[in-house]
Every structure is written in C-alpha cells, then in structure tokens.
C-alpha cells in the first residue's frame, strides 16, 4: 500500500515538473508579457484572436532568428508603442507610474516615523 502511495506521489511530482518545464519556454514567457491589441485586457498568450495567433508565430520566428527577449520587446514597442508591453520601460510617460509607489511608501513611512517619535517624546 505504501509503495502504491509513493508511486502515485512520484507520478504527480513528475507531472508538475514537466508542466513547469513547458511554462519556461521563452516564447511563452514573452507572449505572456504582451498585451493583445484586439481583446485588450488579455495577454497575447491567453488570446485566440487572429492578431495574437500571428504574434505568437512571429515571436517564435524572431527567436529562431536569434533575437533575445529584449530585442523582441524593442521591436514590438517600435511597431505598436509602449502599450503592448505589460511591463513598460521607464520613460517620461511612465515616471508617475513607477515613482508613485515609492512616493507613497516614503510618505507613509514619514507619517509612521513622526507618530513613533511623538510617542517617544511623550513617554
């Protein structure tokens, strides 16, 4: 009985491992980080629109041509603009987007610090 359990566990683990391998395919990784322009809100990987399917083929082609991940992103950014990337770069349009969390963190931290200091002074 124990051997059977062990066997089942091992089979499960192997399945998890192989599904993980599939997800690590670079083409898949790239298309997951691209926004579909037809069904906006879905990634190219998730979408089944004509545009998304072509883009999947194109990404594979570009990878075969020897382009790396960043070059493919740059290539598509050049064609369609920043919007196509889920992870937009740091430029004048995205300063606010990237800096807002840091600002909020600093501001919140300042408030907490002030409270702590005030409390200490009272003690």
């Amino acid at each position, binding site marked *: 009985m124990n051997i059977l359990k062990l066997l089942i566990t091992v089979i499960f683990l192997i399945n998890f491992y192989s599904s993980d391998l599939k997800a690590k395919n670079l083409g898949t990784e790239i298309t997951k980080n691209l926004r579909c322009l037809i069904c906006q809100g879905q990634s190219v990987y998730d979408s089944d629109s004509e545009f998304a399917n072509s*883009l999947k083929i*194109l990404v594979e082609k570009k990878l075969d041509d020897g382009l790396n991940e960043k070059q493919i992103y740059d290539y598509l950014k050049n064609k*369609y603009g920043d919007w196509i990337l889920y992870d937009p770069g740091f430029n004048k349009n995205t300063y606010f987007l990237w800096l807002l969390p840091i600002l909020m963190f600093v501001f919140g931290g300042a408030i907490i610090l002030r409270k702590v200091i005030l409390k200490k002074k009272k003690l």
Partner: protein
Amino acid sequence: MKAKIFPIFLIITFSIIFYVFYKGLQNSNIYTPEIKSEIKIPSFEAKEFFSKDTINSDQIFIGSEFYLLNIWASWCIPCKEEHKYLMDLSKKENIKIIGQNYKDNFVNAKNFLIKLDNPYDLIFSDNDGTIAIEWGAYGVPESFLIKNNQIIKKIIGPLNEKLFSEIKELTQ
C-alpha cells in the same frame, strides 16, 4: 485652527481624486497604436498571390511612385465596403494599389476578386499574418500610403468618402 486643516485637506484630496476619475470616465479605454508617419517601410519576403512566386518587398515598392498597400481578406466584411473606393483609386494613373491577402483561403479570395473585380496591381499572400505585424497592423482592413519607401499615411479600418478624398489630395 490645527483641527480644521485636516478636514480641508481631506476634502481637497477627494475632490482631486473625484475630478481625475470623472475625467477618466470620458476617455476611451480602447487603445489604438499611435499613427506614426514618415517611417520606413519594413522589408519582408512574401509569395505572390496568383503565381506563388517568392517576391521581396523592395521588388514591390520601387521608385518615387505612390503606393497604397491594402490589407484585405475575403472573410472581412468592412473590406467589401471599402472595395468601391479601391476600384476608384485603381483608375488613377499615379497610384499603384498593392493587396496583402491576410489569412485567407485562396479559393475564397479568388472568388471575392471575381465577384467584386480586382483593383490591385499586385497581390501577395500573408498566410500566417506575420507580415501584417511587420507593418505594425493588427487587423483588417488597414491601408498604408507609401512614397519613396516611406509610409506617409496609415489608415486603420475601411476607407470612406473622407479618407478617399484625402488620399486623392495627397497624391495630386
């Protein structure tokens, strides 16, 4: 005095937030890529529609003539709407119309041309849609006005009366 600052600050903050979101309601949330003009046309290889010969993009767009690249498919309904404008343009001497047959079935596409007439000077096939991406297109129909290997106008969607006269003016 100090007690009053906080409520005022709160009201101002919320008013600003309200204003930003209220303004945001009126914006379209559908993104269309910026229409960049004056960019160089991509280079690619494709198969000629009828003969299936491989042709290179620099064999298609030669010299300083005007070219209108039109991405079309027989399954695309708006393509039928814009077809009459393409027919009109094909009668003009100084503009060549190039068709890019997007993800289409050959027989259906041929029937489309037989039924509605063929406005194109040359057609090439884009069976997997990757050439459309080279152009920065993402659907059908899309048209590009080209001169001297530069895109001078990009049209997303079907041609209409207004765009038609605009093209006529540009190619005068």
